């Protein structure tokens, strides 16, 4: 059960996240909230998701990571990434630094298009620009493999998401709002499981803290036996609470990803990862 101190913290957190707070203030409040909740967890360790707070399952996970199940996906992703399109161009031509070591810059707010650009969206934009059909956002496959490779080349880079203007801040606020709104037949908000109750057990599952979520995506899920992108994971959690999931790369998810990644500013990219 929640102690009174924790309760006070979460009321403070909720209030300060809602009234007049700038994203910078939100970030400080959020990170302090988790620091208080899990005093034994180093900030840098949140990139490890649930294993940053649950030592009982950590050892088994670490041994899985020694022979990572996503290795083949990184290899396939690299090959796809380096295979030229029909017009002779490659993915590298669409990205800064030829697409190497840039995962930490996504998602970003494109000030010309007034739109959030996620990595997966940028991959498909690149294909379109070069006259290729977009890749599916679902069920792992080539999209998740390319994303996994690009994350892999960015390991160790620090997330530093910017909110450049008012429009961007609106998108951030929309993502924050959705994160804290109860939805679905079972009436949960994302924050219920990942802000207020992380570290508690739901049957055999322990929920992870909300900071550090995007650092390690895409993720190989042993339950699914394949790679899962961040938006597919969002859909998984919405299904679980019997809420209607959104389509991948819709504004709702892009806003969520923008908010969530901003809250992970200062953490390292360590994707791809492996999870249950």
């Amino acid at each position, binding site marked *: *059960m929640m102690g009174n101190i924790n309760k006070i913290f979460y009321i403070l957190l909720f209030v300060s996240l809602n009234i007049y707070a700038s994203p910078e203030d939100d970030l400080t409040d959020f990170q302090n909230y988790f620091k208080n909740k899990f005093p034994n967890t180093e900030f840098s360790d949140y990139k490890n998701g649930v294993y940053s707070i649950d030592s009982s399952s950590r050892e088994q996970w670490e041994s899985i990571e020694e022979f990572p199940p996503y290795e083949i996906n990184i290899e396939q992703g690299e090959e796809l990434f380096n295979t030229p399109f029909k017009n002779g161009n490659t993915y590298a031509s669409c990205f800064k630094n030829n697409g190497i070591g840039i995962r930490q810059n996504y998602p970003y707010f494109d000030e010309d298009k007034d739109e959030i650009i996620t990595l997966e969206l940028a991959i498909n934009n690149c294909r379109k620009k070069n006259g290729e059909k977009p890749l599916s956002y679902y069920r792992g496959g080539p999209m998740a493999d390319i994303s996994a490779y690009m994350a892999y080349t960015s390991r160790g880079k620090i997330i530093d998401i910017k909110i450049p203007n008012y429009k961007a801040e609106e998108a951030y606020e929309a993502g924050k709002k959705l994160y804290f709104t109860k939805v679905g*037949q*079972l*009436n*949960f908000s994302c924050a*219920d499981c990942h802000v*207020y*109750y992380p570290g*508690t*057990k*739901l*049957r*055999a599952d322990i929920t992870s803290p909300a900071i550090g979520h995007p650092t390690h995506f895409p993720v190989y899920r042993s339950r699914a036996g394949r790679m899962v992108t961040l938006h597919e994971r969002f859909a998984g959690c919405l299904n679980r609470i019997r809420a209607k999931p959104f389509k991948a790369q819709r504004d709702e998810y892009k806003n969520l990803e923008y908010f969530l990644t901003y809250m992970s500013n200062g953490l390292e990219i360590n994707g791809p990862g492996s999870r249950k």
Partner: protein
Amino acid sequence: MLMKRYINIVFIILIFAISSVQADNVKEGKKLAFDRKKGNCLACHQIGNGELAGNNGPPLIAMEARFPNRIDLFNQIWDATKNNPNSFMPPFGKHGVITKDEINKILEYLYTL
């Protein structure tokens, strides 16, 4: 009197029938409480001998002593957000996850704890 004897027998059968219905309700209530697609109360509460219990809600023990009024317990399951608008516990009845009838069966089981 023969008539009186008759009534006695009917009465005994009736009691027997009622208590076996009640036993059935307890059994069904337990099933509903444990079923992941129904109450799934075990996701959050320690309950009797239920395995893989969660721990974000209080253990469901000594229910008779803590909920002497059946209606209070019913209401907690029907709509937990009445007592606590931010409750982590889903409003099972209000959102149509389980029916009134099913909640009443769960109550029969809970009062054995």
